[in-house]
């Protein structure tokens, strides 16, 4: 895209001599170095992770990924990743499911519906939510959110929707459900503020045109704003999803742990990131430390797959709807 711009602008730009060329060179070097540094860094991380996981990789191979086990007691050692992979998938997808309508609702409210004096303060509050450290949200999760969900929300959901295995009998406070709500709170501000920016970027002529044709406000939102912002919102969701997959500390604090796969959201569980955060310091054997790094490797691969899949979906939907990606950026 930038090359297209440059080509288009080139004839108009007057020849200004060496100084501009020198500036261009510096820009190219700095930007190129930054991009290269990132690539090298990711490469080094991947290499280091594979290197650290080598002991576990050679002992367990790919069977590690599908085994449900985590016994760190010297002499009884056996490790597997399946339950953590399951927990990561359940918590991050559910959090995304809860956060998406909420975040888009907030963004629509802030751009289209909120009275003007309310817009700035609410926007600032939503962005403040993103700045709260995860350990603080986790602490609040243990002391306030967990008990509140356990005593008020879980029994209600169980009595109304109890026939669905997801809503089993209430647990002890720390649960997969608590973790999902905590993650939802954490990704909400990311998706909401990006969506807000996107909605603000929808050209006034389009919106006014739609309204002039007699559409209701909802029809305008659905017919003009959503298609315009679709690609961007999808990118925001991918960003939020990445945060949910990788979040470790807050989840460790509220999910309760346990090496099993079950469908009751009110029971405890564990995720890849949470397990690594809880167990890496002071791992009692080399095999355990290596297996934890193996979990990290799986986390890397998992988020890579999810990201690529999401990008593919976005590109396909953009093509289908005839929207030029980045047309307005």
């Amino acid at each position, binding site marked *: 895209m930038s090359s297209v711009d440059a080509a288009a602008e080139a004839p108009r730009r007057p020849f200004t001599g060496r100084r501009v060329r020198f500036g261009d060179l510096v820009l190219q070097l700095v930007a190129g170095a930054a991009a290269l540094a990132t690539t090298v860094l990711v490469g080094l991380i991947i290499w280091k992770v594979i290197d650290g996981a080598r002991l576990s990789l050679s002992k367990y191979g790919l069977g590690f990924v599908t085994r449900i086990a985590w016994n760190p007691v010297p002499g009884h050692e056996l490790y597997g990743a399946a339950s953590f992979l399951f927990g990561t998938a359940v918590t991050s997808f559910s959090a995304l499911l809860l956060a998406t309508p909420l975040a888009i609702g907030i963004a629509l409210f802030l751009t289209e519906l909120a009275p003007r004096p309310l817009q700035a303060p609410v926007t600032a509050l939503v962005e403040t939510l993103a700045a709260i450290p995860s350990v603080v949200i986790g602490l609040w999760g*243990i002391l306030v959110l967990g008990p509140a969900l356990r005593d008020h929300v879980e029994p209600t959901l169980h009595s109304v929707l109890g026939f669905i295995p997801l809503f089993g009998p209430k647990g002890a406070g720390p649960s997969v459900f608590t973790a999902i709500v905590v993650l939802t709170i954490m990704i909400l501000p990311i998706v909401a503020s990006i969506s807000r920016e996107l909605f603000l970027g929808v050209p006034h002529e389009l919106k006014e045109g739609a309204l002039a044709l007699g559409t209701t406000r909802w029809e305008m939102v659905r017919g003009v704003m959503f298609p315009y912002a679709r690609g961007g919102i999808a990118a925001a969701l991918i960003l939020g999803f990445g945060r949910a997959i990788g979040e470790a500390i807050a989840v460790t604090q509220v999910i309760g742990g346990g090496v099993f796969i079950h469908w009751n959201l009110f029971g405890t569980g564990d995720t890849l990131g949470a397990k690594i955060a809880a167990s890496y310091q002071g791992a009692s054997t080399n095999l355990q430390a290596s297996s934890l790094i193996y979990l990290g490797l799986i986390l890397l691969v998992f988020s890579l797959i999810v990201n690529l899949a999401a990008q593919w979906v976005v590109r396909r939907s953009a093509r289908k709807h005839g929207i030029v990606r980045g047309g307005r950026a």
Partner: protein
Amino acid sequence: MPKLGSLIRISAVVAAAALLAVAVVGTAGASRASHNGTTITGAGSSFVSPLVAQWVAGIGAAYGYELQYSPIGSGGGIAAITGRTVDFGASDAPLTSDQFNACNGCLQIPWALGATAIMFNEPSVPNLLHMDGPTLASIFMGQIKTWNDPAIKKLNPKVSLPSTAITVAHRSDNSGTTYNLTDYLSHVSPAWQAQFGTAVAVNWPVGVGAKGSSGVAGVVASTQGAIGYADVAFALKNHLKYFAMKNASGFFTTPGSRGILAAASSDQKPDANNALSIVNPPKKYPVAYPISTFTYVIVPQQTAKAADLRKFLFWAVTKGQAGQYTAALRFVPIPKSVLVVAEKTIAKIHS
């Protein structure tokens, strides 16, 4: 691109603030370091940290040392001394052989003595409810699920027990307290030993995991029917009830200084790495509290600070055990036989 200017301005402000912060911290550190001749740094066990905090003034008065300790947990302490980023590490669980190898010439010295309390939250039953090892093992294995289980009733015939469900709360991180508890459960229950064993973290069959003693206390305090574990001082500080544990001679004992000291005198033969196990002491110690533990300091055998470290550790295992430091925190002075071993090991530190 009109925003570029403001972006640069913001970056400059942030950078200036960061520089200022570094400068402030730097000068503060420098002034502290110059205040005393030598600084001894340590990290690890949160269990022992209140005691080390008490020592700061004492060791300062005795030798003018500045003692800095970070209570980052036993696991973190082992990692820190393995990387030699501190002068000593502290752990409540003895090092495993893998950890010893990684630590590359480390010495392990017992330097404090304490106990683990089994805390609970059930308003309708009194503090110091009776409990024995096999019943506790059944609870932690998930076989006993309610408070009015016949096994608990049999231990407390005069107490009316509620039908509340039991929620087990355990540590999700690697913890010396978990080591102490599972060591005890392995001693009193063959089934526990066979299925779960002794370690800083085990494959818990039931219950809710929480990070740190504070996390476990949080779950116990907010969940009716919960049973969890932490060091005694922690249970007292949080006003949680705890069990009186039945020992091998059939008495119900509490984690007080008498019970801990009696337990400590039971194992007088540390292994080659100075590890001691004093859980479930035999019958001839009738007042012993059965879930007591030594906690260890880990130091490199060869270090540039050898002379200072030797002085500090000698002080810690002798004068540092005095009642003025230990009593209020429910630590107990280490017994003579262990002191001899500790002093012998300390003497091996050289530069």
